[in-house]
């Protein structure tokens, strides 16, 4: 072999292989009935879930789907990078309400692909916050709802004759009675986006909001200062929350309860499955759920994982068919069976609530109440950057570096300037 391979032939073969490799993705993408998708994963069940969804979809439509799976944070970073590069590598993206305002000009509007009646089936709060408030364009369609309820140690509460907190005052009272001997009555996250979510819930509950009628920052109102002061005091004054919580995000928030160190938290729907599984929980059978706490109002965030169509896609029709399938009744039922993900379709949600029994039925009703009353922070131009500012402002107050009022006032001044520069008031 080596004797017959001349340098010229070797170079020619190398050039051919290189050219073939470079052309392969374009050739593959040229197939009419194939789309590509970048989808979310999280846990061992997700790959099987997507495999089944894609197989069923291909069997029904004949459209093939090549997909990659990524967990939430790397997925977000990749979508940001691909959008900045105006890439058409993927036709479909998994996305989320959290940063949707950054993609309003990159995801193709889905309004024309869904009829009014189809859209009305989804929870209004999800559709509202996935839409561009300026244009009304629907940037993504909700796949499942994310909202939080209270999870608490029913065995410990019963032993001490306590009831789950309903109000802010209850939360402190119950927490003080439970804290001691290496245990804490409550855990809340205190870093980054989770800290902002927690502050946001308290802000709405105290009667405040992020912006006023003119879209100017209003989170430094009396209600905002009250909310951040209460949040800080849970950690620094009442000490019913572990001191390390100022560095906690969602994982630590969940693990503190499931490990048995802490007796209550506010967590997402996935916690129901985690706490029920002996492999991931030390408190199986020892916990229960209750509604989120309230102050002046009973409001907390209601957001959603969603599916979006890449604006650069050259295969929009089959891509939309896939998106529709992933938010359709079969996929939503399967999601609930596999991960107890709360459906984004009101019809399917009512169906699963009606079929549920015992604690699961109670929990689903509590979740539905949260979603029905839920809100999200505004999707104004520049608000993603305001979020980065808020992470720091909230953390500074939680760690007593500055007072809640100083922290919020300074953040509000800077936030207005950021949004002005981003064109929120044009």
């Amino acid at each position: 072999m080596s004797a017959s391979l001349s340098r010229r032939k070797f170079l020619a073969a190398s050039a051919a292989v290189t050219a073939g490799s470079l052309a392969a993705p374009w050739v593959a993408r040229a197939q009419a009935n194939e789309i590509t998708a970048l989808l979310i994963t999280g846990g061992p069940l997700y790959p099987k879930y997507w495999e089944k969804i894609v197989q069923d979809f291909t069997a029904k439509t004949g459209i093939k789907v090549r997909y990659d799976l990524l967990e939430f944070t790397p997925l977000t970073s990749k979508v940001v990078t691909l959008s900045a590069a105006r890439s058409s590598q993927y036709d479909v993206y998994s996305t989320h309400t959290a940063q949707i305002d950054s993609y309003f000009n990159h995801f193709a509007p889905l309004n024309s692909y869904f009829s009014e009646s189809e859209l009305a089936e989804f929870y209004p709060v999800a559709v509202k916050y996935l839409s561009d408030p300026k244009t009304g364009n629907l940037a993504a369609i909700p796949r499942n709802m994310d909202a939080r309820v209270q999870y608490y140690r029913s065995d410990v509460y019963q032993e001490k004759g306590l009831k789950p907190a309903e109000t802010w005052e209850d939360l402190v009272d119950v927490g003080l009675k439970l804290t001691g001997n290496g245990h804490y009555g409550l855990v809340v996250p205190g870093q980054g986006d989770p800290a902002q979510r927690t502050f946001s819930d308290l802000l709405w509950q105290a009667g405040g909001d992020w912006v006023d009628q003119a879209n100017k920052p209003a989170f430094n109102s009396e209600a905002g200062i009250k909310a951040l002061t209460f949040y800080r005091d849970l950690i620094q004054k009442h000490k019913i929350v572990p001191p390390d919580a100022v560095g906690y995000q969602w994982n630590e928030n969940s693990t503190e309860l499931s490990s048995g160190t802490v007796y209550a938290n506010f967590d997402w729907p996935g916690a129901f499955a985690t706490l029920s599984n002996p492999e991931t929980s030390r408190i199986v059978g020892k916990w229960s759920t209750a509604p989120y706490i309230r102050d002046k109002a009973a409001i907390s965030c209601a957001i959603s994982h969603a599916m979006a169509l890449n604006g650069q896609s050259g295969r929009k029709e089959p891509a939309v068919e896939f998106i529709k399938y992933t938010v359709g009744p079969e996929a939503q039922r399967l999601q609930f069976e596999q991960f107890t993900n709360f459906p984004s379709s009101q019809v399917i949600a009512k169906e699963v609530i009606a079929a549920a029994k015992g604690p699961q039925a109670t929990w689903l009703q509590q979740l539905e109440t949260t979603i029905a009353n839920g809100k999200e922070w505004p999707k104004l131009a520049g608000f993603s950057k305001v979020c980065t500012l808020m992470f720091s402002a909230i953390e500074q107050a939680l760690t007593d570096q500055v007072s809640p009022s100083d922290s919020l006032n300074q953040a509000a001044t800077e936030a207005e300037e950021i949004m002005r520069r981003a064109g929120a008031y044009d």
Partner: protein
Amino acid sequence: MPPVAQHQVSGRRRRSPLPYTWQRGYLLASPALLVMVAILIYPLGYSFIMSFFRWDLSGSAPFAGVGNYTDELFGRQFNQALRNQTIFSVVSITIEVVAGMAIAVLVNGKLRGMRLARTLLLVPPMIAPAVVGLNFRWLFNTQYGLVDALLRMFNLPEIPWLNHPTWALVSVIIADVWQNTPLMVLLFLAGLQSLPQEPLEAATVDGATPWQRFWHIVLPLMRPVIMIALMLRIIDTFRTFDVVWLMTQGGPGGATNLLTVYSYLLAFQAVDFGHAAAVSYIALGMSLFVLGLLYGIPWLIAKRRAI
């Protein structure tokens, strides 16, 4: 080269269609140059251009002039990151160089167990920064961490390592020092072992103490090695990301936000590539400036002395 050998070499290459010219050299190097341009020069140039535009995902990217740079230079968050970066770089590098030199002098001696010590010194730099970050995050956890558990065992007060702004910065400096001091030791050890022995022996004969030998002979002779070590660490501290991100994500409240972490947050959280690029280029400019001072000042002093 003897004439026969020269003839044989040129005989072997006679079939080449290209003449022996400098153009041929460039032609042969062009694939590698193209790869370098594509993966190094182009992204650098692209991000530099990006730093002069309001570059987010909003569709339009209007020209901002030096607006992104001035926004950041006068911005509170940037200045906090710059302050953190300065403290982090100065304190880490000082400790690493001083401790690195001390340990190098120690392990350069002919004491028992020094060979094992030198081998163990290779371990920290071999560990991925992400692993170091995760380990130190656990070590410094107030509830479950080893460090506070030891403090409690000896009835000493707990330290809020990652929860307090000052201690959080101390924690990331400790992690950085733990990982990078051994690298300094190895560099200094190599330098110490290559020093000429005659001046040291002469000084010993003249009755110099070990400290005098170190201060007046070893240290001046080691200056080129120390300069290289400083240069490497200055470049490195301005690129530090993984350890800090995994330990604190720049918190609490931006107390450990270094320029890299701040730039990452701007790009991937705020989706503001223009400002993120500007921050990266300011950081690059600063590290070049510091390196310029490092090499320029001794050069100027030497020149003045020569005059």
